[in-house]
């Protein structure tokens, strides 16, 4: 009885503690950053190294980097996940090596990805400091997350569907297309959102790849400043940039919040659609 009460108390305490961290963080950002927020802030170009003006070009650069990251990483990851779950046996040496490398890759600190991206994309491939280099570097960084979540989603589709499909003389590709991928879609969406969240919050991997330039980018070959870099730069290198750093951080957190909500909505919608009708 007493044990039960104690456990309940501990659980509630940890819940409150965790929420408190989030609430305090957001309140602090709102307190310092709310004053600068306006529609103009979202679209205007930054002035005076970010002390004034808005974050228009930065939003554009961030969007471009993200779009590039996902459009490169998602198809690659899906193909790898399909290979790992559907076309290779569980204990094959080759897929074992792939999985092990992905696990290691997942725990590599992002600054290392930044250095690698700089050496490989910027210098070796000659892409220079550009949105392209940044996007590709982030793509490498989110590959492990995407592959992991995608394979888990596919693996969660019951084996029985595979058997039933095979018993009808369907090949593996058909079973995948018609039954396994649709079943795995909520997991695929969740994985994508996780990757987007990770990429949008990334600083270290972008410092040496997409760079600091806060002008509106003309092409993917231009350097572009991502939102997280902007926050970092304002708070570390620009005297008097604190309030703008807080505003930008508030925007970043709102974006993350929106991505999260959207992903659970989408996943729920798909799950629901699967049960009610397709």
């Amino acid at each position, binding site marked *: 009885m007493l044990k039960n009460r104690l456990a309940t108390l501990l659980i509630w305490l940890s819940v409150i503690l965790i929420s408190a961290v989030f609430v305090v963080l957001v309140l602090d950002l709102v307190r310092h950053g709310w004053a600068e927020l306006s529609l103009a802030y979202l679209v205007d170009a930054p002035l005076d190294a970010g002390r004034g003006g808005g974050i228009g070009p930065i939003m554009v650069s961030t969007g471009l980097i993200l779009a590039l990251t996902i459009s490169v990483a998602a198809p690659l990851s899906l193909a790898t996940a399909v290979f790992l779950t559907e076309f290779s046996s569980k204990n094959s040496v080759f897929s074992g090596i792939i999985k092990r490398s992905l696990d290691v890759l997942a725990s590599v600190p992002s600054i290392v990805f930044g250095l690698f991206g700089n050496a490989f994309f910027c210098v070796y491939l000659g892409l220079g400091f550009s949105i392209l280099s940044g996007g590709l570097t982030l793509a490498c960084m989110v590959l492990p997350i995407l592959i992991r979540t995608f394979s888990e989603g596919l693996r969660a589709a019951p084996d029985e569907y595979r058997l*039933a499909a095979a018993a009808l*003389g*369907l*090949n593996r590709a058909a079973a995948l297309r018609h039954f396994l991928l649709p079943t795995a879609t909520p997991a695929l969406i969740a994985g994508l959102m996780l990757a987007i969240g990770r990429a949008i919050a990334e600083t270290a991997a972008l410092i040496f790849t997409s760079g600091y330039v806060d002008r509106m980018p003309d092409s993917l070959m231009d350097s572009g400043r991502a939102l997280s870099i902007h926050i970092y730069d304002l708070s570390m290198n620009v005297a008097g940039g604190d309030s703008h750093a807080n505003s930008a951080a508030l925007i970043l957190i709102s974006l993350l919040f929106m991505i999260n909500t959207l992903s659970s909505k989408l996943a729920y919608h798909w799950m629901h659609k699967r049960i009610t009708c*397709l």
Partner: protein
Amino acid sequence: MKSLLIEPDRHPKDHPGQERSYTLGPLQAGPPCCDPQTLLSIKNLSLSYGSTPALKNVSLDIYQGCITALIGPSGCGKTSFLSALNRLTDMIPTCNVSGDIHFHGINIHDPKQDVLNLRRNIGMIFQKPLPFPVSIRRNIELPLREHGIDNPTESDAIVQQVLSDVGLWAEVKDRLNAPAQALSGGQQQRLCIARALALKPQVLLMDEPCSALDPISSAVVEDLIQRLRGRYTIVIVTHNLAQAKRIANYAGFFWVSDRAGCLIEFGQCKQIFESPQHELTAAYVNGSRG
């Protein structure tokens, strides 16, 4: 291909709207087929999972147009036996199959054998109804489309026909686009049978098709199996001895000896149940063992 005992007569417009019956006349308990012709011949089939044997030296013939029932205690390898017949065992990496299985006189393990085509000809119904998570119509349409029937008029006709064949048409004709998983268990199982029938298989392997169903749904499915006799060659695994006795022409009794399944006795259903040759069979069908 040899002709079936009763030619499949599949076109809906030949029998507008009327419920067709495909029985060979009045049914008796376990009548032998008029003229047994071997469709599937299994010789010395052994099967193991990794190094654990599951079946040893099983040899028997499956006769065209007849219902063959396989009985035996749990774990004696009946499901494994069925899966070997359409090479579903290929899906299990650890599973080794040895021995000869001939379908229409052609070795199914021949490298030239197209596995997908083999499985299309030898359909399988599982113990648990396994409709795909799509609509009732798509459950039937998708496999058809994968086998090259994508003309909507044709596939609609087939959908209607197979659903009528399994007695489901009246129940679902107004909600073909509803999810298949919203059907009851018995309806789902009949949908799975319809889905298999749509591919016009020659053989249907049924692994305890009634065991997950209530007695009424089970009777409906059993009645359906009766009506398929003659048009299809059916191999059915069942734990329900009374059912086997009612519907089968031939019966085989599996038992575990030396930790691997083997076929103890095979013969006409009536003989297996009424005058078994082997004492294990006698004990099992009389309910004192297993």
